C-alpha cells in the first residue's frame, strides 16, 4: 500500500461494555472489558480531538450501554464543540427525561434505540431484562417529544422475526424516522447462539415481503434499512463499506479496530489510542493495512467486477466460518464455502432452538 488512505468518515466509540441487558446476540466480544479497564474521560476527549482532526464527521456513541457512563454528557459536549455529529446508540433502559434533555442540550443529534421485539414478554426474555420493553417504549416517546430524530433498531432473528409487522407499527407509533430491521450478524456472542437465533428461510421470505409492502405503504413516513441476512444471501454485504475505508472503532479499553468484531480474528495486532497518533494508526496500522483495498484479495474476489462494491464482504465472517480471514466471505455464492454455509443454516433451523447463552461479563470463554 503506497498511497495514503482516504480519511475515515465515522467513529464508533464503544464507551463501555457494561450493560443492564444480556442479549444473546450482543456485538461485543465474548471477553468483555470490566469497568476498571475502561478509558477515562480525558482519554475519550482526546480521542475525539484526534478524530475530528483526522476528518471524521460523525461519532456513534455505543457500548455496551453508553449511558452507563456518567461522563457521557461531557463527552457529547466535547464532540459538539469539535463540530462532530453525535449519535447515541442505546438500549434506552437507563434513560429518563432529564438525562435525554441534558444530552440534547449538549449537542446530541440523534438517538438509535434498540428493541428486542414487539411482544413485551418475549422481548424481555430475549434481552434478559424484565420491564425493558415498556421502558424502551417510554424512552422512544421521550426522544420524539424532546424533538430529537429517532431510529428504531429492531434486532431480528428466529425468535422474534414473526413479530416484524408489529415492530413496524411500534416504530410508526413512536414517531421514528427510520427503522433498521437488523438481522443478527453471527460473530462473538451471536455466533455462540447461532442455532437459537438463525431464522428459517420461510421466516425470512415472509419478513422480506413484509418490509417491501411496508416500505411502499410508509414512503415518506418511515425509512427502512433492510439487508438480507448473510446466511441466505447471494452476494456479501459491503461490510463497514470496506475494511479501513470509512469507519474506525475504538473499544472501551482504547483499542483501535477496523470494525467492532475485528478482535474475533486471531493473528491481527491492534494498537491502542495514545500509543501513537490516531492518524498514523489509521494510515499504516497493521490491522488496518491487512485487508484494506483490494491487494489482499484471493480469487474469486481479485478478478470480480464487484470487488470495489462489496470489498470481499466480511472478514470476521470469513474467519468465523472457515478459520481464514483472508478468503472470500462465504455469503458470496461464488465462494467455495457458500454451500456449506447454506446447508449449515438448513440444518440448524430444522431443529428446535436451544436455550440462549446470555451475554454477561464473566460468561465468556
Amino acid at each position, binding site marked *: 500500500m503506497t498511497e495514503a488512505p482516504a480519511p475515515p468518515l465515522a467513529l464508533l466509540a464503544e464507551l463501555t461494555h457494561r450493560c443492564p441487558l444480556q442479549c444473546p446476540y450482543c456485538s461485543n466480544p465474548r471477553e468483555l472489558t470490566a469497568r476498571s479497564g475502561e478509558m477515562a474521560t480525558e482519554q475519550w476527549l482526546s480521542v475525539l480531538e484526534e478524530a475530528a482532526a483526522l476528518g471524521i464527521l*460523525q461519532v*456513534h456513541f455505543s457500548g455496551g450501554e453508553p449511558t452507563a457512563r456518567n461522563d457521557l454528557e461531557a463527552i457529547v459536549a466535547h464532540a459538539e464543540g469539535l463540530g462532530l455529529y453525535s449519535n447515541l446508540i442505546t438500549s434506552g433502559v437507563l434513560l429518563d427525561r432529564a438525562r435525554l434533555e441534558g444530552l440534547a442540550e449538549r449537542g446530541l*443529534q440523534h438517538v438509535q434505540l434498540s428493541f428486542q421485539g414487539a411482544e413485551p414478554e418475549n422481548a424481555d426474555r430475549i434481552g434478559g431484562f424484565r420491564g425493558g420493553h415498556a421502558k424502551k417504549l417510554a424512552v422512544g416517546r421521550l426522544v420524539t417529544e424532546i424533538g430529537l*430524530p429517532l431510529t428504531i433498531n429492531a434486532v431480528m432473528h428466529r425468535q422474534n422475526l414473526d413479530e416484524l409487522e408489529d415492530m413496524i407499527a411500534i416504530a410508526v407509533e413512536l414517531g421514528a424516522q*427510520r427503522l433498521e430491521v437488523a438481522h443478527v450478524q453471527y460473530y462473538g456472542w451471536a455466533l455462540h447462539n447461532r442455532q437459537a437465533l438463525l431464522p428459517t428461510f420461510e421466516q425470512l421470505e415472509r419478513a422480506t415481503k413484509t418490509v417491501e409492502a411496508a416500505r411502499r405503504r410508509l414512503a415518506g413516513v418511515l425509512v427502512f434499512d433492510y439487508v438480507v441476512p448473510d446466511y441466505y444471501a447471494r452476494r456479501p454485504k459491503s461490510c463497514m463499506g470496506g475494511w479501513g475505508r470509512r469507519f474506525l472503532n475504538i473499544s472501551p479499553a482504547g483499542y483501535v479496530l477496523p470494525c467492532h468484531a475485528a478482535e474475533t480474528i486471531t493473528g491481527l495486532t491492534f494498537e491502542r489510542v495514545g500509543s501513537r497518533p490516531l492518524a498514523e494508526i489509521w494510515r499504516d496500522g497493521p490491522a488496518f493495512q491487512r485487508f484494506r483495498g483490494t491487494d489482499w484479495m484471493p480469487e474469486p474476489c481479485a478478478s470480480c467486477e464487484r470487488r470495489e462494491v462489496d470489498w470481499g464482504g466480511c472478514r470476521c465472517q470469513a474467519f468465523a466460518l472457515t478459520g481464514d480471514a483472508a478468503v472470500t466471505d462465504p455469503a458470496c455464492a461464488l465462494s467455495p464455502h457458500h454451500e456449506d454455509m447454506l446447508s449449515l443454516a438448513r440444518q440448524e433451523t430444522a431443529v428446535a432452538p436451544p436455550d440462549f447463552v446470555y451475554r454477561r461479563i464473566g460468561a465468556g470463554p
Partner: protein
Amino acid sequence: MTARVTIDESSVPRLPRGMRLKHDETRQQWVILAPERLFVLDETAHAIMSSVDGTASVGAIVDELAARFNAPREVILTDVTALLQGFADKGVIAA
C-alpha cells in the same frame, strides 16, 4: 414523521433537528450530516440547500436561484422541487 410531505411552490422547507449542513474541511465539500448517514452536496444541491432557512418558500427560493444563475424559472423549479422532494422523503427536510 407522521405523514408524507409533498413539496410545491408554497412549501416552506426547513432542516429539522438532527440534520446539519456542514462544510467538510478535510474533503473540501459540503455535506448534510444526518442520522447514521451523510449526503454529499454538489454545487447545485448546495445552492438549493443553503437557501433552505425555514422562512423562504420554494417559490421564493426558485425566484432567487433563477435570478442568481440567470436560468429559466421552470427549469429551476423542476430541479428544486425534485431535490427537495427527494430529501423530504428521506426525512432530511421538513416543510
